[in-house]
């Protein structure tokens, strides 16, 4: 394994971390459109909170996918063709929620506004759940043949472990979204988000413990890397505790950073466990490795130069755009 290959393995992890941290909360906010927001005016505010951002957040996914294609084509090909149906459903969910914000705002009848609100809610739920399920299934190991083609059947990737993984990521995104709402709104919405999180955090703890137990039985992570795996699982729980403390003591930034770091811990856990593999095959001989799945040194070198010259500029204006919209949104008058 060369340094460049290692660097790109880490960079893919960083991009997915960015994706889960950012799109995590806008998935969460998307889920809240229907049940959490009580009326049209509240829904306007809830959607407006992610209005300027959700599209940019989704670009992290597109960048992660593109970077994976560029740096590890074998990984990209095996993962994307192998999880065909899951990814197809993710795409459908992302499409529905993606157009829902713009379309809802321009609907004139109650019925159609309602339709796009449900599209946002269900789309966001499904996307978060399916991403969680996909990555959980991936680390459990899949049937992969000599050519690197994955030949998984439905129950290879839909089982107790992957379902728990899916639910855990969904709940994490949901609390992250609520923590974001607490930061971005005021009045009734802000208070309700706090109340919801007081109930949801205990559920999340239960989910995380169950996930850790299943992780022990369903993957080789604890067997191969007992120290780091345990450390990351502990970190995950600590971040969640910090976020919960932020809920109980009403420290809003602490909660938001805590739930974001929890999501990042999950990504780190996955990438740490994968290393030095990128896809885990049931037959270890066919697992895809960092060293034999990457692009040529020339391409990796090129990508490294380009990334490190473009990314800092992107980060500057990306962060600036959050700064521009840093202000809280007022709650609708009737609820204030």
């Amino acid at each position, binding site marked *: 394994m060369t340094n460049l290959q290692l660097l790109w393995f880490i960079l893919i992890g960083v991009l997915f971390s960015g994706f889960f941290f950012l799109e995590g909360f806008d998935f969460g906010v998307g889920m809240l459109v229907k049940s959490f927001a009580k009326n049209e005016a509240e829904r306007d505010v809830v959607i407006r909170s992610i209005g300027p951002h959700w599209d940019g957040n989704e*670009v992290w*996914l597109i960048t992660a996918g593109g970077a994976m*294609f560029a740096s590890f084509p074998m990984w*990209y090909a095996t993962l994307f063709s192998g999880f065909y149906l899951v990814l197809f459903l993710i795409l459908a969910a992302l499409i529905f929620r993606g*157009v829902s914000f713009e379309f809802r705002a*321009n609907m004139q009848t109650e019925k159609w506004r309602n339709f796009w609100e449900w599209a946002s809610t269900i789309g966001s739920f499904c996307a978060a759940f399916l991403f969680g399920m996909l990555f959980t299934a991936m680390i459990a190991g899949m049937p992969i043949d000599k050519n690197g083609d994955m030949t998984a059947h439905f129950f290879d990737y839909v089982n107790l472990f992957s379902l728990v993984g899916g639910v855990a990521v969904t709940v994490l995104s949901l609390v992250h979204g609520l923590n974001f709402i607490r930061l971005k709104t005021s009045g009734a919405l802000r*208070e309700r988000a706090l109340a919801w999180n007081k109930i949801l955090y205990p559920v999340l703890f239960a989910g995380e413990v169950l996930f850790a137990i299943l992780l022990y039985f369903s993957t080789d992570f604890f067997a191969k890397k007992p120290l780091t795996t345990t450390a990351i699982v502990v970190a995950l729980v600590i971040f969640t505790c910090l976020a919960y403390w932020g809920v109980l003591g009403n420290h809003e930034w602490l909660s938001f950073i805590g739930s974001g770091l929890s999501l990042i811990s999950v990504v780190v856990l996955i990438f740490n466990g994968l290393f030095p593999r990128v896809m885990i095959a049931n037959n270890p001989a066919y697992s895809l490795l960092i060293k034999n799945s990457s692009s040529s040194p*020339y391409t990796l070198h090129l990508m490294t130069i*380009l990334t490190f010259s473009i990314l800092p500029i992107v980060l500057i204006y990306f962060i600036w755009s959050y700064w521009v919209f840093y202000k809280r949104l*007022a709650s609708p008058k009737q609820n204030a």
Partner: protein
Amino acid sequence: MLNLGLDILGLARFQFGMTTVFHFFFVPFSIGLAFVVAVMETMYAIKGDEDYKKMAQFWGKMFLYSFAVGVVTGIIQEFQFGMNWSEYSRFMGDIFGAPLAIEALAAFFMESTFIGMWMFTWDRFNKWVHTLFIWLVMFGSSLSALWILAANSFMQNPLGYIINQQTGHVQMVSFGAVLSNPQLWSEFPHVIFGAFVTASFVIAGCAAWRLLKKDHVTFYRKSLNVALVIGLIFSLGSIASGDIQSRYLINNQPMKFAAMEGLYKDSTNKGEWAAIAGFDNKQHKTTWSVDVPYVLNLLSYHKTTGTIKGMNTINKELHAKYDKKYGNDINYYVPTKTLFWSFRIMSGAGALFALLAIVGLIFNRKKSQLIMSQRWFLYILGLCLWLPFIVNTAGWFITEFGRYPWVVYGLLTIADAVSPNVSVASLLTSNIIYFLMFAGMGVVMIVLCHRTLKAGPDIENTDGYAAGDTDLDPYSKGAFNHD
């Protein structure tokens, strides 16, 4: 399972065609609208005329609808390579992945960030800064076209690579060569100019329908003027860049060029050009045609003499060149009728756009009322708002069908590129659902644009986006407390 005679190759090809065509309804529309809206807002910034601000906001609404659909259908494109074309991804990843990743990093971030800024900050920044946002959106989306076309150009005309002897995959040896591919520099201007033309004629068409109803005459006449000036400049640009691009094919992809001109036999020195023709694809011959002498040579070489190789000759040459490697049972003929008619639709429409723009600008002169009395012209303009979408599709039909049987010209056949592990059932399901979703989104798009048009430019922004904009400062005293 029921055997419907469907195979993964056919379904994967259909899916690629369907998703790309649908995606590409919105891409040129969005890029073009970003440009036209940017021009309008710049005019507002310079002249301070509120009408131009209203124009930027009004046509900007259509831009936002189109952008939303373009974004979500674009994700399908990126995922599709891995999902449906895993062998292609393995073979091409070393070259194809890099432009795709840079597209996301350099272009999509810029586009998505500044579109958010543009949408929500009309009253927050001074007009020059706000205008800069839409130019950055437009610049970002053009950049994204550049990168994806760099990837496409490699598939049309591979340059800057070697074949890795161990893996058999292509490997990049010169990024400079990939980027300086002549195919790219004829394709990119053509696509961008085409995008500007698309937006101009949709705006012109919409304005024409409203003018027929004598609705907001000043506003729509001004819009029409901006649209037609842009439309004229870039339809001429499209024709010029299209000419460069098609002449580049003569040596580079001779089969594509011959099919565009419907030449089965080699042409004679007289350069007879078939304006319209019928073909027998099985017998590989032209059954009838209406010929005009010299035009073929004028189009191909910009002079009256010369000859062009016909498809039958090229077919023999390709067999001689590739049979050793790929066997002799590959069919090198491309779908002649599709290419022949697509080319005629595209080039005919290009000329029509330029003509309409000139006539329209004459009728719409500031001191003249001609545009209001020439109702026949407004009807034609109104109908032509659909034409750019057909023309864009025709252009891609030529480019992509004309590459048959290759996915990467001369290096990888379409049949060898498909994912072997995806089932017919999965592909059929996804095809059907995509189709239904696209149909739904297409209908919503049309309804929204129509409604926006009917509501007119005076309606204030009805988006829920204005919600809660009486912002509170989270850093002000007490904001962190729960009181």
